[in-house]
């Protein structure tokens, strides 16, 4: 898809469909769709600087124990350490997207070997692995 914010609702529908198809409850599927929406929004805002002619690719991989989402873009390389959620006690606009991604996913990492731009991998296990919903570090580099 293009980096057009108008298309984000389609991305959410796709994620919700695959999540429910994989066996996630509706509430969990909503959380996963929000996490992917936040990841794509980050790409549109920060990687493409709100340009609408960038390209994003979402792949959904279904495994017996988990669902994996791979979001690729062709923008400048992201430094994962710059994607830290803001401390929740520091109340100001912004800085919550990465936090919500962590809340709804079990693992988030960047693939350093991806030559195109950035490849973000988001993983959610069907069995609860414990919440990653805290204010700690952002995505890992792998």
């Amino acid at each position, binding site marked *: 898809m293009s980096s057009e914010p108008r298309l984000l609702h389609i991305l959410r529908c796709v994620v919700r469909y695959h999540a429910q198809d994989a066996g996630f409850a509706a509430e969990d599927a909503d959380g996963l769709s929000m996490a992917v929406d936040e990841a794509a929004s980050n790409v549109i*805002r920060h990687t493409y600087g709100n340009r609408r002619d960038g390209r994003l690719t979402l792949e959904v991989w279904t495994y017996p124990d988990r669902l994996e989402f791979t979001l690729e873009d062709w923008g400048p390389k992201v430094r994962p350490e710059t994607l830290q959620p803001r401390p929740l006690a520091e109340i100001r606009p912004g800085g919550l997207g990465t936090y919500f991604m962590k809340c709804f996913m079990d693992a988030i990492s960047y693939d350093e070997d991806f030559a195109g731009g950035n490849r973000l991998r988001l993983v959610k296990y069907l069995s609860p692995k414990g919440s990653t919903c805290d204010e700690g570090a952002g995505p890992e580099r792998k």
Partner: protein
Amino acid sequence: MKVQVRNESNATIIDCAGEIDLYSSPALREALLREMRGASANVLVNLNGVSYIDSSGIATLVEGLQLSQRTQTRFGLFGLRSNARSVLELARLTKVFAVFENEQEALAKIASTQPFSGLA
């Protein structure tokens, strides 16, 4: 998302319906900033018709709260559905905003709400 503004007895109400995301949140932001800078002493956002809100929508509401401090406007939310309430709870913002169950309660209590003073 649809954003409509109406004036009630003692407050301006911004009715939102649909999904608030990176695409639609600028429309809410525009309405919020305009009303905060207008004549109304009390501004309420009705989220009853909102089925989805992401971090850009939350950021817009926090920006409204910031501006309400600067303009001495009282600012509140009402009609939160479970998804919007969950997102606010995750972000630990339910005690930051003046949140009312419905329009009747919001109109009755907004004038006596203490402005929040803990913004960064």
